[in-house]
């Protein structure tokens, strides 16, 4: 693997956005994900190569550490910020079709629930894993999830809830989406959820952390 991609992956994992970013302190003044991604393109590396062997490697590393409680929310947010900076350079190639996503992930917080931190973390880690993310926001109705699945054929759906009072709204979305578009995979998550609850409402998977969602997507498309 090209050395520049190893460096890029390191910058994503450490949350090093660009040369002027003061964070993390020990990388102050050095090039970040922004500069390195542009350089990799200038060096003639393929966008898909940069995504798979740079961005995805870095986000995977931070996602795994997060699921083991070795790093915390701010670390994932900074990594996602670095990833977004790199992604800006790759976006035109995705738009033109020269680069391709591994798949599409439709994600949102369920109806009645306005909490978005957990959902955002999942969206960031999954995007960093090489997927196109369609983020529907918070308080998303079952119908809105269904519209997004219809508009993105083959998409996998992610449902988030923080409250015990709103997690019960997941069931409606799961059954509506699966009935209208058979074969659609749904993964659920959120603080009060359990595997038993996911099984009970007919979801295909439950994950206690963002990396689990990414691992499920990877396994489902393998």
């Amino acid at each position, binding site marked *: 693997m090209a050395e520049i991609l190893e460096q890029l992956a390191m910058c994503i994992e450490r949350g090093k956005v660009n040369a002027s970013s003061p964070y993390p302190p020990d990388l102050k003044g050095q090039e970040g994900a922004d500069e390195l991604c542009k350089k990799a393109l200038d060096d003639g590396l393929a966008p898909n190569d940069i995504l798979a062997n740079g961005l995805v490697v870095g986000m995977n590393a931070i996602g795994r550490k997060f699921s083991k*409680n070795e790093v915390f929310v701010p670390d994932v*947010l*900074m990594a996602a910020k670095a990833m977004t900076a790199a992604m800006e350079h790759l976006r035109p190639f995705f738009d033109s079709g020269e680069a391709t996503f591994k798949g599409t992930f439709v994600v949102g917080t369920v109806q*009645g*629930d306005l909490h978005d931190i957990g959902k955002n973390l999942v969206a960031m880690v999954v995007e960093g894993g090489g997927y196109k993310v369609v983020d529907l926001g918070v308080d998303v109705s079952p119908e809105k999830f269904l519209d997004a699945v219809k508009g993105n054929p083959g998409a996998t759906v992610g449902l988030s809830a923080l409250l*015990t009072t709103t997690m019960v709204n997941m069931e409606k979305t799961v059954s509506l989406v699966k009935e209208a578009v058979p074969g659609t995979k749904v993964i659920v998550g959120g603080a009060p959820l359990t595997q038993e609850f996911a099984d009970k409402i007919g979801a295909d998977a439950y994950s206690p952390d963002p990396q689990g969602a990414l691992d499920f997507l990877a396994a489902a498309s393998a």
Partner: protein
Amino acid sequence: MKRIRDDLAAKRILVSDGAWGTFLVAAGLQAGECPELWNVEHPEVVRGIAETYFDAGADLVLTNSFGGSRFKLGQYGLAERTVELNEAAAALSREAAGPDRHVVGSVGPTGKMLMMGDVSEEELYDAFRTQLVALESGGANACDIETMTAIDEACIAIRAAKENTGLEVICTFTYDTSTAAGYRTMMGVSPAQMAEATLAAGADIIGANCSLATAEMVPVVKELHAAAPDVPILVHPNAGRPIRADDGSITYPETPELMAAEVPNLIAAGARIIGGCCGSGADHIRAIAAAVRAALA
């Protein structure tokens, strides 16, 4: 103004209240409905919760204003009513408290993250100031800046309280992440780090609430007490981790007796004010109050 610390000096251990949300849901609050709106639309229900907890033996009772910042109320289109809803919250608990007991204005997180540039420090400060001033004018004599996870947000709220009100300031964080080195908040903050930062910002009383079951709070209280041996510590554990029944309902596994059984351990760890968070009700507080009386006897 009345001070919780004066009562602590006289009584050594005080009893706080239990959960509010579960009461409101039981009274008919729907998912997607703004809990703080009940302060004006169903004041008798909200006042009744405070009365229930005082009757159960609480020395201090919070207010129905956890999501009362203009950022949270704004999600329901109610940002313009921030002052009204917070004043009403404090007034209802004050009516239940009478003049001699403590009303502690509840202030929860805004849901905005400074490090992501969601919001500026000035905007956060202004939002907390508005809420805290309204809680004081409604009748609160203290505030609890609670369920916090980030040092920056909590310290801005503490400063807003200290610089604009005469409220006694309690600050509690929620430690939901278990690591090899002990519990941390989701932002990675340890109890010792929290103690140092919030006391420097001016907190009078510190502690922990939510996420953890009662026994799990013991090491957290110990760490807080070791970091700040002279500062009173408040603890509001959950009644265990929530369990979902087959019919979709949610229950919390710790009975009043189970929670009360941990009271001596919490006191030994350094807790001075003991109440409950999610899943705890009047019976839990009654049992905790009895256990506190027994411990003091």
